[in-house]
């Protein structure tokens, strides 16, 4: 029986939809690995934006939901 090659899909981070502008340019993330886990960078940025009331409402709601 002929073997079929299993299709693999590579999880890509970019482009990610931007939360705030309706018609703004896309935001890309670096393909190079970060020196610290990217989740930690995201968490730190989100924490500081939230502390200064600058976090997008949708991101804020998501953050609160994840903290519950």
């Amino acid at each position, binding site marked *: 029986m002929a073997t079929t090659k299993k299709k693999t899909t590579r999880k890509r981070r970019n482009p990610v939809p931007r939360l705030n502008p309706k018609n703004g340019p896309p935001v*890309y993330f670096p393909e190079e690995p970060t020196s610290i886990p990217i989740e930690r960078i995201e968490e730190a940025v989100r924490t500081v934006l939230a502390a200064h009331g600058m976090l997008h409402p949708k991101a804020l709601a998501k953050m609160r939901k994840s903290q519950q």
Partner: protein
Amino acid sequence: MAARLDPAFDRNVFINCPFDAAYAPMFEAIVFAVKDAGFEPRSARERLDSSQIRLHKIIELIRSSRFSIHDLSRTELDDATALPRFNMPLELGIDLGCKAFSRVHSRKSLLIFDAEQYRFQKYLSDIGGQDIHRHGNNPRTAVARVRDWLRSESGRDAIPGGSVIFRRYEAFRTSLPETCSVLRLDADDLTFADLSAAISFWISQQS
């Protein structure tokens, strides 16, 4: 065999600039402007595999980037050696060669910066006739030039204005020490990929 373009070719912006501490604010501002305009900055500061020859890495970055920013403002005599550093003019030359000799790379667009408008004529007169932009070592000016160039060369309409991008950069820069504090890092400890990821996430999450 015809050369193949990197899939990210149209969004990559190669940044050829000095790496000294005094240039850091300018570098960060340019990286932020490129990101906020919807493009991806690429730099030789990216992680270098120890088995990889540095020049090969730079050539690969040039090959995979439609846009390039070359800052020649630090082409000056080194205090210790009394010799000029020619890395940036060399990389500009490689990029000009890539654009000239490769048909698929003929769409490349270069933004050349110097500290003063006509200084290059004294050390690199062969590039006379090209538009050399003066940034006066001012990040605000550099951001505006980068934005205007990307807007006109890419044809994208949705790029915010230079003053808007610079205001956002200042807000990001103000928040960076606090972000680093949460991460228990010094801002100087951030690698290029760390900074790039932090900027991307900051842009995508703020209101």
